[in-house]
């Protein structure tokens, strides 16, 4: 579903992402974790087709995002941490808009259940500007899920959600994965990552420092055995001491 090979991205002389390679299959949830400035958001934006890789390839549902961006984008949904909505459209109009963009013929039939799932039914005729931060995030999630994407790219999806919303969102992500979607989830909520993700991809300074299931990572580094997810993260992303004289 998602195949990334030697993904590299420069900003001028700065190498934000440096030769990342990974694959996420149907039903898998990959946790993309790393400290601030590690290159997570740049990676996700490359996957979503917002920015182009400097080199390397990104294949989404058998479509190379560079060569066939439309095919790739039809298959994916990108849900950023900051919801981008249109101030002059209501909740249900956002979904109709997305429905037309993605050619969802039965959009009207899907709107009701989706709004129920996101607890937005009462707000369906309300302008997006009148929604709270959490509701805006729910609407952005609903827009992402409307066309039943086979690839989900989530950047801190729980930002702004209340505990109930977080619980439902966790269930939604799992349900989509069980239905066959490939999911990439970036979050600093390590308990969420631990709960949902089938594998981890840990980055630091644009490079992969560990990948695989927690068991595989621990197996490759026996010193990490018995650590909590937080301790594991700290150990994997800790800066190496500077070499003497450096």
């Amino acid at each position, binding site marked *: 579903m998602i195949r990334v090979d030697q993904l590299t991205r420069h900003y001028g002389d700065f190498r934000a992402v440096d030769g990342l390679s990974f694959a996420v299959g149907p039903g898998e949830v990959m946790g993309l974790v790393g400290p601030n400035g590690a290159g997570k958001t740049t990676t996700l934006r490359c996957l979503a087709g*917002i920015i182009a890789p400097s080199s390397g390839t990104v294949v989404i549902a058998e479509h190379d995002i560079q060569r066939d961006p439309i095919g790739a*984008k039809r298959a994916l949904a990108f849900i950023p941490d900051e919801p981008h909505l249109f101030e002059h459209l209501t909740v249900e109009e956002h979904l109709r808009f997305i429905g*037309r963009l*993605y050619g969802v013929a039965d959009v*009207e039939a899907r709107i009701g259940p989706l709004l129920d799932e996101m607890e937005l039914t009462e707000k369906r005729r309300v302008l997006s*500007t009148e929604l709270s931060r959490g509701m805006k995030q729910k609407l952005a999630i609903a827009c992402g899920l409307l066309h039943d994407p086979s690839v989900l790219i989530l950047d801190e999806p729980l930002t702004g959600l209340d505990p109930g919303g977080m619980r439902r969102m966790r269930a939604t992500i799992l349900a989509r994965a069980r239905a066959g979607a490939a999911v990439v989830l970036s979050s600093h909520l390590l308990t969420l990552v631990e709960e949902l993700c089938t594998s981890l991809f840990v980055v630091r300074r644009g490079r992969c420092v560990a990948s695989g299931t927690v068991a595989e990572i621990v197996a490759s580094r026996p010193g990490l055995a018995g650590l909590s997810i937080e301790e594991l993260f700290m150990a994997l992303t800790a800066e190496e001491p500077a070499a003497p004289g450096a």
Partner: protein
Amino acid sequence: MIGTFAYLILASARNQLRARVARLRNPRYAIALLIGVTYLWFVYLRPSHDRPHTDELFGGGVAALLPLLLLAFVAWTWLSGGDRTALAFTQAEVTLLFTAPVSRRTLVLYRIARTQLKIVLTSLVWTLLFQPAGAGSGALLRAVSYWIVLSSVNLNRLGVALVRANGDVHGLRGARRNGLAIGVVVALVAMVAYPIATSWPLLKEASGPAAMTRVMTDALDRPPATWALFPFRLVLAPLSAAPGTAWLLAAAPALLLLAGMVLWVVGTDAAFEESAAEASVVQARRIEALRARRGTTATMVRNASRSIPLRPTGRPAVALLWKNAMWFVRSGTLRSMLLPPLGGVLSVVLLSSRSENAAFVVAGVCGVVAGMLLLVGPMSLRNDLRNELLHLSLLKTLPLRGRDVVLAEVASSALPLAGAQYLLLLVTLLSLAFTSVTALTPAIRIALIIGAVPLLVGLNGAVSMIHNGIALLFPGWVRLGVGDGGGIETLGLGMMNIALALAMLALMLLVPVTVLTIAVALLRARLAVGIVVGGLLAGALLITECMLCARALGGSLDRVEPLHVQG
């Protein structure tokens, strides 16, 4: 605490100034500043510039009318409810200052002080731009005089917002205070309106603005108008006072009045924080809307009652067109664009059928407005890619080709403009039917009605495409949102864009205009046919050019990244 706030204000101003100076290292801002300064010099500041002074225009009575204008403005702010955002603080100020151990009085003082930089700058600009007849000295005193007027207006605005907020928070007691204030304002207006009303027959007979001003001046110099205008004359008195002792004698009571207004505003009650926080949220939303919609076209959309249906299937890019049309309908822009043609139709019905001169006037006005709309419309109606570029991250995730996005966005502003111009053209032709113009036979009128459709669509498409193209290819040259601020370099940037757009339009018009001219010349024996054929061909050529541009710009849109647009 005062020192802390002074530090905040001065450090912010210093950093803004530094940022503005630093960006002059970029050639585009340096060139733009040069163009802006040159423009201001030639238009306003050139010593030999022979522009009439305001006093010459109004027979020396303009100073006498200024208190009336000031009263009208103050009355309007009270009666219209004022602007709640006058109380607004930035979100950072609400978060950091409202929670800090700072008294309410200090906060209000800070709010007043924060606006002083803008007021001082505006006073200096006004001092340069508005020079009373014979004035050549005392620029500093004139600047202080303008500062007194502007500060008084600003304090009044703040006061209105506070009184209204009190009204909301304190129920009946607040409503009484609010009602009392409005009662005073109404009484002042009545005191001024009465002598003007009694002078109405003289005003009707007055010939020209100078005579009308004299009648008004006489009316306003009689009680009770002179009592009502007393505080306003007090505020304005330093402006017309001679430098020296006379100015000091005029400024002292004005400054005392200003101090009284400061005490009145500072003495507000506990409703302030709540109202200020609420106003800050409103302002933050406005800024968000401005950023989203990029400056001038920003409009707060408040209700979702009107809607346009959208079929779930079909060309996906139509969804963008629909989305932009929804803004067009809900922001009230559609209503304001339909007003001129509807006003024209009403004028035709009421006036044109009775008088040939009126018919000419209606035709002329509608024709000029249509022409202005063609040139200026695409600059002000930015319901297209220029709005969307700040949402580029979202736009890039949509499963659409760049050229489809460009076409849909350009059509979003070009089609409504073409529609409004077409309606104005129809009104013009209708008005001319009531005149003795014989050149426009019914056949030619019908030809114009048919030929104008593709021509106007093509023309507006071309103009909008150019402006969108400039925004996409040179995003740094186009004013982005409100964050870019104003300044002389922004004025220069705007002028550069207009020059570039006109050059590009001339290039795009070259072939279509040649074809139109040839068609009309070849078919001059059957002019109506020539107009239709020429209009269709020229329109088709313009639309083809637009499609080719969309193809090229679409490639650029596919390649452009959010950082390039926002950086």
